[in-house]
């Protein structure tokens, strides 16, 4: 017997399963391992029905169950101090974490991956990535207020990058723009290592009043279970189990049918409809349908509730009437939600659905027997303890070990390598290197992408790309708002997985502080290769350990996130890429600091905060010379924290008018970007820093030492600024001044480059490759 046989007139019931223990089931094709199938048989005390097998196979997939990482991810909970939990209203494990902002406001945000679908079908894959994360935010009772997208593509000049980049960007744009959510930032990195495994991560943030908080649980015996939104179709079947939990392989058939197809209009209507339900308090519990579809929604709602649930599957509205019960349970059709409604609220619920012309069907009700039972025309096809499906899935302690090649990699430093010979030294050579850097695929202007996204809708966007963090206002009366930045450097993490993860957090924390916001929460999307490879598993274990340690030092809790594994082609894994999103709070977004100086800042003093070391390993410059080896820049989280406090206080007290963090491309990139932000020039000198830090001009400009920022200080504030930094014992150097007349960036004694030449170099690259 196969799944195809489970048609309307030949349903594999629980009774049938008990009576026919010997029937062969396609558990291996559904991605289950033999020990996992044996476990299911043990839990049920019989073979699973076809429908039960479908449910277990998706819910026990790597994507849904975190079976390879659970034992490591626990560190995020274990390393949380009571102080870090102070503002945490909902932590990891729900659809998204919720953090208190004060004044009765809360914010919820989460970052997730949609990597594999975006490679198979870039447009739909990226689009539905936005759709899924936005529904997570709605599920918490929040109004989504912004989205962001950290992206990793293969080489910019590889032919397939045309397909992937155009598809992903148009997918994010068409879906996000149609939802009315401003896209406020993200990052775009090109590296051949992502050629067959592009990373498409999506972040959404929402705001809610405390009283509107909703959770995914089914409680209250007799309460009704309703499925609403789009109809269930045949798209995305096995998306979580087959697509997201396996490596790609040329020998297997195309997996396109496993990619979901999005309808942003349906999602926009669903957002407004859900918010009206929340305002009128018409739902007791709510869950979006994402990975694993109805299997996930029913088992999670039931497992989180205080009873069980009974669902009649033929009540599900279908797009395709030929779907089998198993397919209906596994379908990942988009724009669907499941809610629990008291009998008293049924009429009012239906009135809201009718107003928005949203289809719905009542599937069943909450029971008191702690079982999830699913019937097909009254015949029981699923009878399970929902916890065994949703919570107590398999857990693996995968073997891991520091790879043998790690030592050799770390010993291969840039300056000792052939690539590090003949580094730019004269003014002309350094100028050429600066232009080459800011025109390079990773450092070039990304407005070719961001101008395809709506950054204005909502009227609350205070900062967006290319500023360091996206800033959105939440309360128009008070100006209360949030800042978010996402960061990861796969090269650093490859060189040192522990430090790399900490560097990702340090940079996103710094970006948020640079905008003037106080970092309060973190969400992470851990993109790695196959956990079955001990080298990769070590990278992952080190990454989680590094990130959780760093969160503890910086005092920001991880409130949720996602793990994306099997990002590898054959045996070649991507660079470990832990994308970290930090969220910060601004009491008044009018105080936010932009990443460049305007014309009216003419004459303001430019300062570099922080010390520069000879740190070029893993840098963008080394990358331009084709070198990757050595050790990433040092991390000192206490210094990072101190820098953050200075940036936040200086912003609050009006001591700085512009600030930009130093990261990839170092001081050279930061100064160029600050000049280009509003097209206003500057005059700087490096002598003091070179002498103080014992470096040559090239290293001073291109080193990627951490915990640094460039700020513009009004002349009237210089004394206060210097008093504050010296009182805190922080290293600062006065670099020069903003020069609005010069229309150029002058590095005294080295070179002068016009704003026009900088712009041409910076803005030409994306257009050259993508039109």
């Amino acid at each position, binding site marked *: 017997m196969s799944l195809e046989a489970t048609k309307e007139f030949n349903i594999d019931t629980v009774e049938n399963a008990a009576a026919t223990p010997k029937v062969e089931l396609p558990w291996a094709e559904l991605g289950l391992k033999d020990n996992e199938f044996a476990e299911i048989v043990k839990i049920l005390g019989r073979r699973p029905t076809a429908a039960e097998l479908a449910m277990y196979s998706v819910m026990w997939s790597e994507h849904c169950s975190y079976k390879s990482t659970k034992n490591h991810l626990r560190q995020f909970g274990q390393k949380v101090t009571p102080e870090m939990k102070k503002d945490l209203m909902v932590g990891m494990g729900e659809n998204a974490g919720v953090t208190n902002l004060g004044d009765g406001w809360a914010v919820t945000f989460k970052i997730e991956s949609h990597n594999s679908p975006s490679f198979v079908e870039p447009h739909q894959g990226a689009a539905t990535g936005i759709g899924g994360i936005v529904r997570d935010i709605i599920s918490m009772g*929040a*109004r989504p*207020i912004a989205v962001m997208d950290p992206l990793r593509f293969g080489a910019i000049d590889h032919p397939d990058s045309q397909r992937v980049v155009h598809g992903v960007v*148009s997918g994010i*744009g*068409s879906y996000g*723009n*149609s*939802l*009315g959510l401003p896209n406020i930032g993200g990052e775009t990195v090109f590296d051949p290592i992502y050629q067959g495994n592009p990373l498409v991560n999506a972040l959404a943030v929402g*705001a*809610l*009043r405390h009283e*509107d908080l909703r959770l995914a649980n089914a409680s209250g015996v007799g309460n009704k279970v309703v499925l609403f939104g789009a109809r269930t179709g045949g798209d995305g079947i096995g998306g979580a189990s087959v697509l997201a939990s396996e490596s790609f392989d040329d020998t297997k058939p195309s997996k396109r049918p496993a990619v979901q197809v999005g*309808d*942003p*209009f*349906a999602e*926009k*209507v669903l957002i407004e409809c859900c*918010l*009206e339900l929340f*305002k009128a308090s018409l739902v007791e519990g709510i869950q979006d349908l994402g990975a694993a579809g109805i299997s996930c929604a029913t088992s999670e709602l039931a497992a989180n509730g205080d009873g069980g649930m009974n669902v009649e599957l033929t009540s599900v509205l279908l797009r395709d009437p030929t779907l089998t019960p198993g397919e209906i349970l596994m379908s990942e059709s988009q724009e669907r939600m499941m809610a629990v409604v008291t009998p008293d609220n049924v009429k009012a619920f239906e009135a809201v659905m009718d*107003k*928005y*012309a949203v289809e719905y069907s009542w599937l069943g009700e909450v029971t008191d027997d702690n079982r999830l039972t699913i019937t097909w025309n009254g015949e029981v096809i699923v009878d399970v303890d929902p916890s065994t499906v949703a919570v107590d899935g398999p857990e693996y302690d995968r073997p891991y070990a520091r790879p043998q090649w790690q030592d050799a990699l770390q010993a291969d430093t840039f300056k000792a390598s052939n690539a590090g010979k003949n580094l730019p030294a004269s003014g002309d050579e350094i100028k050429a290197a600066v232009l080459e850097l800011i025109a390079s695929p990773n450092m070039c202007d990304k407005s070719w992408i*961001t*101008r*395809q*996204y*709506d*950054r*204005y*809708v*909502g*009227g*609350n*966007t*205070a900062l967006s790309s290319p500023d360091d963090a996206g800033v959105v*206002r*939440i*309360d*128009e009366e008070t100006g209360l708002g949030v800042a978010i930045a996402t960061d990861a450097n796969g090269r650093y993490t490859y060189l040192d997985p522990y430090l790399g993860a900490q560097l990702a957090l340090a940079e996103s924390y710094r970006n948020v502080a640079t905008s003037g916001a106080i970092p309060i929460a973190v969400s992470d999307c851990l993109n790695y290769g196959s956990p079955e490879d001990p080298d990769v598993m070590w990278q992952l274990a080190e990454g989680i350990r590094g990130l959780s340690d760093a969160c503890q030092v910086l005092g920001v809790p991880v409130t949720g996130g996602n793990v994306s594994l099997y990002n590898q082609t054959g045996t070649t894994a991507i660079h470990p890429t832990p994308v970290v999103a930090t969220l910060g709070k601004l009491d008044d*977004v*009018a105080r936010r600091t932009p990443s460049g100086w305007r014309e009216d800042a003419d004459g303001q003093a430019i300062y570099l905060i922080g010390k520069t070391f000879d740190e070029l390993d893993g840098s963008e410059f080394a990358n331009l010379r084709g070198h990757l080896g050595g050790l990433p820049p040092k991390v000192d989280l206490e210094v990072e924290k101190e820098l953050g406090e200075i940036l936040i206080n200086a912003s609050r007290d009006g001591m700085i008018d512009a600030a930009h963090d130093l990261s990839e491309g170092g001081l050279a990139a930061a100064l160029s970007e600050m000049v280009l932000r*509003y097209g206003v020039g500057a005059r700087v000198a490096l002598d003091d820093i070179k002498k103080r830090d014992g470096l040559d001009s090239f290293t001073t400009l291109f080193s990627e030492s951490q915990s640094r920022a460039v700020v513009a200080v009004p002349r009237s504030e210089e004394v206060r600024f210097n008093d504050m930094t010296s009182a805190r014992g922080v290293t600062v150097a006065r670099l020069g001044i903003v020069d609005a007349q010069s229309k150029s960036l002058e590095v005294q004694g080295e070179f002068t480059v016009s704003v026009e030449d900088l712009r041409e170099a910076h803005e030409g690259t994306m257009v050259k490759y993508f039109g």
Partner: protein
Amino acid sequence: MSTELPLIGDYSTPTTQLSGARIGVVTFPGTLDDRDAARAVRAAGAEAVSLWHADTDLQDVDAVVIPGGFSYGDYLRAGAISRFAPMMDKIVDAANSEAKLPVLGICNGFQILTESHLLPGSMIKNDHLKFLCRDQLLRVENNQTAWTNGYEAGQEITIVLKNQDGQYVADEKTLDMLEAENRVAFSYVGWNPNGSRRSIAGISNEAGNVVGLMPHPEHAIEAGFGPDHRGTDGLTFFTSVLTHLVGGKK
């Protein structure tokens, strides 16, 4: 009736504003910029009244804004389904009546106005085939309409442009007529961002009470939350209509 329950920027509760004018903001399924339009109305000093597409009561509003978005997903043709909304029948009648209800259509709202035949021509996909979001320089070609009387003739303003289907097209005869009758309200300055015929960004009807344009004045009404440079150029749309309503002329 209460039709909108935003968590942010709640405008469902009427507030008494200085001018006493009531300006309706229509929401269709898929409308996106309704909150922004309501905020702009309030910033100008009027009361924003939420109008739901399926209702038929104009609630005695003094003017109407049809905001941008992707009503019905733009799946058929932008604005093609929304024009059949019961509320649109009322708006079309009121705009054509003797009272000449002022109506402003922004982006998708402009598309709905052309589909409703309140304005001539139509919009097709941008000539470069991509969604484009940018700060856009416009020239005010006609400052004699209900929505532009606060601008100087020939004034250049920067507001937000963001759309997929923004290329204004009409036959040559219509274009000649629009120019001859001074009904081109706005044109793009410099680069034509979507291939619109004769760089037309917005037009009016003959009486000047109905104006439609692709760019978004409602996103340029508050410094710091709109275009980088001169971020409040769009507010004059909304103050103009108040001037118009109290009978003020330039």
